[in-house]
């Protein structure tokens, strides 16, 4: 794990300026584009909580998702299709499961650090005060959400061999995640049949779990364990997929 983290640090060091500009600019742009506008239309949630506070974890999860995309693209698409470094890495004594697990964990760690910067900026811009415990819940939710999203992106990376296909599918996946995971709007705004389906998606469970803790203090084990279980099983699926893709 340390080796993989060190490698991410080497990569980050080489593009520190561009990365930090992106990490700082991203929450500002999202705030200008989404929060300011929607915040003036929706003041309270249907369940009578402050919309800005309700939206906050959703915005953090959106940033987390955006940050994860280039990391997963680089590790699983670019390094497999273009520079073929992933093939060399697959010839080391690491099993495919270990390889996927380590690359995914380092991606999550890096995305978490960047998302924490975004969390701070959002807190300042939205003028919110949240307890340390609330922030901690969001951090856990962010990693759980990231686990699902990363696995989805790894599957896309492994199933596609052309960059156009990768980005089109990722674009669709991204928007599906944003609008099906209760990040920006409550499911009560959606038709019943659609919301009934979306509620059972693992990503929705994560945002639901986080908000239940933040607003009601209820810890729903099902909402926590199910996405975690799906994420872990998905890692195994991806390792099998990698093995088949590399014909090893």
């Amino acid at each position: 794990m340390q080796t993989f983290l060190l490698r991410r640090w080497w990569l980050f060091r080489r593009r520190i300026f561009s990365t930090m500009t992106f990490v700082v600019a991203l929450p500002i742009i999202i705030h200008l584009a989404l929060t300011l506008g929607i915040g003036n239309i929706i003041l309270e949630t249907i369940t009578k909580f402050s919309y800005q506070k309700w939206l906050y974890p959703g915005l953090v999860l959106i940033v987390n998702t955006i940050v994860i995309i280039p990391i997963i693209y680089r590790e699983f698409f670019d390094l497999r299709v273009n520079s073929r470094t992933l093939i060399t890495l697959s010839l080391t004594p690491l099993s495919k499961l270990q390889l996927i697990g380590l690359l995914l964990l380092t991606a999550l760690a890096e995305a978490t650090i960047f998302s924490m910067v975004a969390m701070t900026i959002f807190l300042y811009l939205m003028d919110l005060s949240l307890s340390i415990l609330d922030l901690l819940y969001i951090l856990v939710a962010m990693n759980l959400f990231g686990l699902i999203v990363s696995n989805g992106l790894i599957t896309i990376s492994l199933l596609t061999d052309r960059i156009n296909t990768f980005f089109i599918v990722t674009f669709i996946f991204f928007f599906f995640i944003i609008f099906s995971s209760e990040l920006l709007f409550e499911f009560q705004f959606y038709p019943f049949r659609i919301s009934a389906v979306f509620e059972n998606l693992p990503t929705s469970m994560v945002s639901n779990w986080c908000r239940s803790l933040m607003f009601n203090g209820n810890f729903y084990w099902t909402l926590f364990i199910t996405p975690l279980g799906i994420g872990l099983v998905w890692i195994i699926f991806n390792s099998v997929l990698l093995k088949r893709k590399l014909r090893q």
Partner: protein
Amino acid sequence: MEASITLKKVGKLAGDKTILAGLSFGIERGSMVAIIGENDAGKSTLLKVLAGSEIPDYGNVFIHGIDLTKRRKNSQSYIGFVPFNSDLDPFLSLEENIRFIGSVYGVKDSNITKRIKKFATDLNFMDSLHKRASITSPGNAKKAMIVRELIHDPSILIIDEPTAFMDVGSGRATWDLLRRLAGEKTIIYVSQSLQEVERANDRILVMQQGKIILDGTLDRLLESTLQYHQFEIEFVNLTEKLFNKLAAVTTVVNPTKIGNTIHFYGRERAVFFQVLHEAAGELMKDLSVKKLSLRDLLDSEFAGKGLD
């Protein structure tokens, strides 16, 4: 001698095309083996199968007696594989690329540093170690790939074109290093440079259409063509009648006509004089005689059918 690598009826298919056709052979520990052959003969695929980069469709590969497919984790540490094109992480420096793979293999930092210094000095690219792989020359990238695969001290080194993209000096330094390592490590390589293969002068496998058609040392391979010579006689006017007359000489082998020049092979130089005798009275412009080399051996006439 103990076998380093053993192949048992190893085959690889691509759709209905056979890439490797049931290969069975062994490679002795510490030997240096060159794989040569025409394009699409299956050389690179064979290297990938030996390196575990691709699994065979049938048959088994054993590395020091361990089945490469079934006990991959155990066998993989014995192998270092350098593919033809760069597979370095383009955004890391050459040194970071080497260090990362070394750490993944569990090599101590101090050993990594020591080995990088030693091999990079041997291959003359110490100054380029800090350069990003994406902006370094392909020759230096190849050197870094060789060092990267030596960093975990494998007992088998598999290289696709060891000196590809390198200048003459770098090529020489690479061969010096490989020759020093041979004996201690089993080195298997594919090369299009037959001069390099002739100089390395160890075991040579000649591949054609997924099969090994010749296997042995250079001397042994050339034994099949021993005393064969290649002759060329350029006439002022080589008519069909004259060509047929010369081709009819019983000791002339594989005669071909290109313009006014006749090419043929013969077991002894005496053949040349028999042909000259037949062509008495015809005006000649040029003639040459040479002994057969590995290049001639690879010509389809020889490798495919043989002279006899």
